């Protein structure tokens, strides 16, 4: 009995209860993650972080939320009022919606019903998450536009371009997963990772997804839509009070959502870490959730880590990276994966598959070394002609080309 | 029937050589003529190989075919481009390539001072290719391609010196007269297709016995028209005299030996049509008899040596056509005369060319005289040809012409007497005018200018002449010995089963009669031209003047065809200007008025275009709505 048919038997009230559970989980997780991020970043910067409100400062983010809610709600005069209000709502609603297809546990019993902790199981679940994510960006873009101010507009522009570009890479990275799992349903994908995590089997896909998920959520080092240093705060510059809080919430829920998706697609979902499978049997289905959230929190830590260590990328470099690196690499990788898949489904001998893989590795190595050489050559070509001497006296230094030492 | 893979070379070699020389341009100026000559010689070689191969086979296996590609495939109408080499075509192949090669050689010297010698040789090769296609095609359609090809080559070569308007006009005249004949051929092909559903010789031959008399007569008449056009027969003969504008080797090759005999070939090839239709045969003999007398009379009046020879060609081909019209046995005699004529007439034309070469291109025979002393070889070869053409035994013409006269008498009844008489009369006039040509040119006292320095031609020119004159001496005897050619051609023209039962006159009597009239003719000519020849032609009798004007042929054409044609054209032009143009102008005016008013619709706004589109969609929907109501 698979997840889809189990869910199909759920009565309406059970779905409501599950929805509530997911919602509460997300909100709590947001509060905790805001606190956690501040603590972790502080540690990375040799500080302590919030530690006053509640034990270890755990209630700090709750207090901040209350404070935000009590602030004056400003709507700029130049703003487009309706869109200005709608934008944070779109952000906040869509970020929760992707949880509908996340399998949080295996089979559990809830109020006497056998079910799984997953609201619905669509055959195209992952595509659904992508779709919701793409709708979610409307919040940011519209917020930027409706503020009627330059910085937010620039933030919105950047955000839309960023989303269009990185969604392509993200979608392409998922193709390999679909090919290997033979399905686009989240629960099927989790089941397909029973033996090997896709993070291992499809390592390049995992890396591409991990990179593009950071881009998708506008997090450092890809937080160009809000770039404090350049755009004052980007799309949410003009927002305050609860509307700002909604964006805040949306950002963190989104982080959790993409982390959950990464967990589901690449890290075996709610299943235990390799070698610890017995825990699922001993402690029951609900314990799977622990494994799930351990993985999600791992991803969250990665996010924080990135924020704490990496500088923000320049916008053009960021776009160049997306279009000229991530997408071509994804395409090539899909080619390789599908070839391998066809080979194995045709029952080619292992040696052939191994030879093919080895050949691909060789080609990649050769290609990269050629590329590096050409880059080095290009940088040499850029040097000015050494026969043109500067028109001013330059002290002679032995072994150094004078022009090069000045211009290079 | 045997399949041969070499037949294509016969056509392809000269064709490619021609294209090669034309495309390569000036680079080939230095060696183009040598290449062309070698190619021509090699086709002769191929022809010889095929001939001996055919000799070694026997009976039905002698004919060889080669299918090249499927040419036309329209429904049930299928024509292959394929070649057929049988006993008839091999005669032509050897004649064309053999005489052609000799004339190539001759031309190297004759044209050596011409700037465009390479182009001339390219055209010659083109002619050889087209002529070979004509005789090798296995269907009327393939023949037609060659037919048009030789027409083109002839046009190009007559007008070779087209910087002179008169020559260009002569080329055009030849082309147009040929076109009239070509219409006949194309009509014949169309009728054949409607009647027999096939245009191959084999297909038409198979269908001919079952066809209606009217159809056969129509095809025969059309084929005769085609033959008349190509072979300068009455009433389309007027172009041949003017065609002498071309270089003399051209006259020798195309307008004496080969192309003009295509009509004879066509009729012989279509023997199955003419065998089945007595009316067609009658037409043929009438045309042949008229032309042989016509040409002979014209020949007596011409002072231009080439035109005199041209008239003689016309007359001799008249003999051939006459022979073809005389039924199965006549075909072989026609072909025999064709072959011998090819030798002696080519020899004489080359001789004429040699004379012109020595006389600074002077063609008026009244300004020759006594050239035999300065040009002994030319005089000798020309003399041999002369003896052959007037039918002095044992030269070639005696064998071939006597057979034709004999056959004409044997046609029986009044017809036999009339035809035989005409042929005999023709022979006498031939003897007269040919003697006139010879005497005026080579004997008597010299009448040429002080400026002229007649001299013998270079060896490259006289060697072909010698070879041809040997042919004109020996060919008649060789071909008629034991009826060699008759037996050889028998499978093609069906002559084996027809042996003329009754003889009006025995061969000996005919020969004696012929010899008698020839002697009379020769004697008359010697008496008239031996003594003194005025440099300016005397006014002469009415008949002489009429003959000088080609017996009024051009006048007839001008008055009966050209003038009414012009009038009709003028009238049509008037109608075109007033009426047709008026309609067109009215349409144009209406359109421009409409467009001026419709221009407002095109206001440049995309949205109004979109609106119009929507309106169109509404109209469409309304139409559907109404239709499905």
């Amino acid at each position, binding site marked *: 009995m698979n997840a889809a048919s189990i869910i*199909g038997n759920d009565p*309406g009230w059970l*779905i409501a209860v599950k929805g509530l559970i997911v919602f509460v989980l997300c909100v709590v997780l947001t509060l905790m993650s805001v606190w956690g991020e501040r603590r972790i970043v502080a540690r990375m910067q040799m500080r302590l972080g919030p530690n006053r409100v509640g034990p270890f400062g755990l209630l700090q983010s709750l207090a901040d939320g209350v404070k935000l809610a009590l602030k004056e709600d400003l709507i700029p005069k130049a703003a*487009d009022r*309706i*869109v200005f209000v709608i934008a944070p709502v779109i952000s906040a609603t869509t970020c929760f919606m992707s949880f*509908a297809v996340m399998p949080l546990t295996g089979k559990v019993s809830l109020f006497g019903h056998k079910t799984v902790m997953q*609201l*619905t199981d*669509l*055959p*195209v679940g992952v*595509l*659904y998450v*992508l*779709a*919701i*994510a*793409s*709708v979610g*960006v*409307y919040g940011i*873009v*519209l917020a*930027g*536009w409706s503020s009627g101010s330059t910085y937010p*507009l620039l933030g*919105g*522009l950047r955000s*839309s*371009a960023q*989303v*269009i570009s990185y*969604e392509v890479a993200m*979608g392409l990275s998922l193709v390999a997963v679909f090919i290997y799992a033979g399905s*686009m349903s989240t629960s099927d994908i989790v089941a397909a990772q029973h033996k090997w995590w896709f993070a291992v089997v499809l390592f390049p896909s995992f890396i591409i997804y991990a990179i593009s998920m950071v881009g998708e959520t506008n997090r450092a080092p890809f937080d160009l839509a809000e770039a404090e240093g350049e755009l004052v705060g980007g799309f949410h510059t003009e927002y305050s009070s609860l509307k700002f809080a909604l964006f805040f919430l949306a950002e963190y829920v989104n982080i959790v959502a993409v982390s959950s998706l990464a967990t589901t697609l690449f890290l075996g979902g709610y299943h235990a870490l390799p070698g610890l499978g017995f825990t699922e049997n001993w402690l029951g289905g609900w314990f799977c959730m622990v494994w799930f959230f351990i993985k999600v929190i791992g991803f969250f830590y990665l996010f924080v880590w990135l924020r704490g260590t990496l500088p923000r990328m320049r916008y053009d470099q960021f776009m160049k990276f997306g279009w000229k690196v991530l997408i071509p690499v994804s395409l090539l990788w899909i080619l390789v994966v599908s070839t391998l898949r066809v080979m194995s489904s045709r029952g080619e001998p292992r040696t052939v598959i191994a030879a093919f893989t080895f050949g691909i590795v060789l080609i990649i190595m050769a290609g990269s070394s050629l590329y590096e050489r050409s880059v080095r050559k290009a940088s040499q070509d850029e040097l*000015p002609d050494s026969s*043109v001497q*500067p*028109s*001013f006296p330059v002290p002679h230094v032995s072994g150094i080309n004078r022009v090069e030492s*000045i*211009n290079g | 029937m045997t399949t041969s893979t070499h037949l294509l070379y016969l056509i392809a070699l000269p064709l490619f050589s021609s294209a090669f020389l034309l495309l390569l341009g000036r680079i080939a100026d230095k060696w183009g003529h040598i290449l062309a000559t070698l190619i021509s010689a090699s086709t002769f070689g191929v022809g010889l190989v095929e001939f001996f191969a055919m000799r070694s086979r026997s009976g039905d296996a002698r004919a060889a075919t080669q299918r090249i590609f499927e040419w036309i495939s329209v429904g049930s109408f299928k024509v292959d481009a394929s070649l057929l080499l049988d006993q008839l075509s091999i005669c032509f192949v050897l004649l064309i390539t053999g005489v052609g090669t000799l004339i190539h050689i001759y031309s190297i010297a004759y044209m050596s001072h011409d700037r465009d010698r390479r182009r001339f040789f390219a055209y010659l090769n083109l002619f050889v290719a087209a002529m070979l296609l004509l005789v090798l095609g296995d269907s009327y359609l393939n023949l037609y391609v060659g037919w048009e090809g030789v027409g083109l080559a002839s046009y190009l070569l007559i007008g070779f010196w087209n910087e002179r308007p008169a020559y260009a006009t002569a080329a055009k005249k030849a082309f147009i007269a040929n076109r009239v004949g070509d219409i006949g051929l194309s009509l014949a092909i169309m009728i054949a297709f409607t009647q027999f559903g096939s245009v191959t010789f084999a297909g038409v031959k198979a269908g001919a016995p079952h066809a209606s008399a009217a159809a056969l007569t129509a095809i025969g008449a059309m084929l005769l028209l085609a033959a008349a056009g190509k072979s300068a027969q009455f009433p389309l003969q007027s172009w041949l005299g003017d065609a002498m504008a071309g270089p003399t080797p051209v006259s020798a090759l195309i307008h004496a030996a080969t192309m003009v005999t295509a009509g004879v070939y066509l009729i012989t090839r279509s023997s199955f049509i003419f065998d089945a239709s007595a009316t067609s045969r009658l037409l043929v003999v009438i045309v042949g008899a008229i032309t042989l007398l016509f040409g002979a009379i014209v020949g007596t009046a011409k002072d231009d040596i080439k035109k005199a020879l041209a008239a003689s060609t016309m007359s001799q081909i008249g003999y051939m056509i006459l022979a073809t019209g005389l039924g199965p046995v006549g075909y072989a005699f026609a072909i025999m005369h064709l072959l011998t004529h090819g030798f002696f007439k080519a020899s004489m034309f080359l001789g004429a060319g040699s004379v012109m070469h020595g006389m600074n291109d002077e063609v008026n025979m009244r300004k020759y005289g006594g050239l035999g002393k300065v040009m002994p070889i030319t005089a000798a070869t020309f003399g041999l040809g002369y003896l052959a053409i007037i039918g002095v035994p044992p030269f070639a013409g005696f064998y071939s012409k006597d057979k034709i006269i004999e056959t004409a008498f044997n046609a029986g009844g009044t017809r036999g007497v009339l035809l035989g008489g005409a042929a005999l009369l023709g022979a006498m006039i031939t003897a007269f005018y040919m003697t006139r040509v010879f005497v005026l040119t080579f004997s008597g006292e010299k009448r040429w200018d002080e400026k002229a320095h007649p001299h013998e031609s270079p060896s490259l020119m006289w060697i072909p002449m010698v070879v041809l004159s040997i042919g004109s001496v020996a060919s008649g005897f060789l071909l008629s010995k034991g009826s060699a050619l008759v037996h050889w051609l028998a499978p093609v023209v069906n002559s084996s089963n027809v042996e003329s039962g009754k003889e009006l006159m025995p061969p000996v009597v005919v020969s004696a009669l012929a010899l008698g009239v020839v002697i009379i003719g020769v004697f008359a000519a010697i008496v008239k031209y031996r003594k003194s020849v005025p440099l300016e032609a005397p006014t002469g009798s009415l008949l002489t003047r009429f003959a000088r004007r080609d017996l009024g042929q051009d006048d007839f054409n001008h008055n009966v065809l050209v003038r009414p044609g012009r009038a009709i054209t003028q009238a049509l032009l008037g109608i075109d200007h007033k009426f047709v143009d008026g309609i067109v102008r009215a349409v144009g005016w209406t359109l421009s008025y409409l467009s001026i008013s419709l221009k407002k619709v095109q*206001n440049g*706004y995309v*949205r*109004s275009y979109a*609106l119009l589109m*929507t*309106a169109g*969609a*509404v109209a469409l*929907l*309304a139409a*559907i*709505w109404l239709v*499905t109501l």
Partner: protein
Amino acid sequence: MFKMALQVGSTHTPEAVLFWIMAPMAVLAALGMLLVKKAVHSALLLAWVMITLAIFYIAEDALFLGIVQVVVYTGAVMMLFLFILMLVGVDSSDSLVENIKGQRPAAILAAIGFGGLLLSLIGRAVSHTAAVGLTATNADGNVQGIAQQLFTRYVWAFEVVSALLITAALGAMVLAHSERKHISQRQLSVDRFRQASLADTAGLPASGVYARHNAVDVPALLPDGSAAPTSISSTLEARGDIIASEPFELTANEEEEN
């Protein structure tokens, strides 16, 4: 919502409810798109229509297409529209005054005719047709079914369309490409060092440097004591707010004194 969408194959009532709620909203949104002034609002309303349609697709057992509709149309196409709107005409709100004579009444007339005829024709053609339904066809899954068709019967069309997509992408790049007009920072710095004089290689001097007064309208003094006119903002120069530099220059005597 999705729960319900999945069940509509079997029951009719929820689908009817869904339809009668969503369809009027879609029509209203489409009308709104037609009537609102701001292009961005139009885009948003259109996005809403598209999402509605996606929901309808899902309700009509075209799950894959519904999701793809959101990803492609709402996610990519409309986002592209918004992007271009922001890039091109953020504040160029369309004036709704018609400038082609008779365009609007004619358009409305044509539209009424078009719509009326279309609806009437549809009414005749498909009204009360019994739907076969996709339950049987989708037995192996909607995605699998589409894939089956797409890669067998329609594979040629699929390839052609992919070629079209690539061509379109290239075409858009070529169309939208513009020669780079401004010079990059790197190029500027390289150029600075390549010129004959290295006087302002390190940037223009700031106003007031070494002068006796550090106001912005006082030129800087160069090492030889002369004034550097490039040190004053061109704006001030244009306004005429510039003070003669002579009084502030160092004279030779003064230099010696110091």
